[in-house]
């Protein structure tokens, strides 16, 4: 069974530029999460989708971050404009249905903002 796929794996941009990350979850997984992991810390939830609807985006900085999940499968996370403090690893995870099931993480995208 294929795991969670993410791209790109690495991205370096200058502050005020925009960037987009892509995630393809495990087939059949209804729930998709985006987490931000700053070096030395645990992952922090940014947004949760159930199928193609947003369930929780309370910790998403909506003035600069946006996310969508078209047709309940792939998802994209965008940052515009980026700030220095956005430098982190962005992890996508999926589960069958919410927190009653294990979440599987993709390899992540390491973003460096200079």
């Amino acid at each position, binding site marked *: 069974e294929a795991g969670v796929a993410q791209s790109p794996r690495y991205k370096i941009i200058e502050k005020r530029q925009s960037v987009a990350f892509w995630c393809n979850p495990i087939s059949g997984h209804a729930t998709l999460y985006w987490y931000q992991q700053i070096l030395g810390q*645990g992952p922090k939830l940014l947004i949760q989708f159930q199928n193609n609807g947003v369930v*929780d985006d309370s910790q998403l900085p909506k003035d600069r971050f946006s996310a969508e999940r078209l047709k309940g499968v792939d998802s994209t996370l965008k940052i515009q404009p980026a700030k220095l403090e956005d430098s982190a690893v962005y992890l996508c995870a999926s589960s069958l249905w919410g*927190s009653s*099931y294990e979440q599987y993480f993709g390899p992540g995208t390491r973003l460096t903002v200079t």
Partner: protein
Amino acid sequence: QQPVQSPQAVILREGEDAVINCSSSKALYSVHWYRQKHGEAPVFLMILLKGGEQKGHEKISASFNEKKQQSSLYLTASQLSYSGTYFCGTARSGGGADGLTFGKGTHLIIQP
């Protein structure tokens, strides 16, 4: 509310046992345990749902005390491959907005 993990770090010799604790001040629905090696994504270890059950496979097991909102991860006869950072992630519900809140992690170093 971020769960509190203890200890922050532990160094063991191969073959020794370790216990990592995770506690929350809020009622929990589930506790998830992950291991992350440097530069890699977190790898799922196990999930415990409310009900105070204990789970295990091979030499890694975990418990969840629903009354105390505490979970513990037990590593017995540790192997070099167990080195990494262990995170607990907690969820307060089983449906709807139930993304995990992770602790700060416990760094485990296994020496030969």
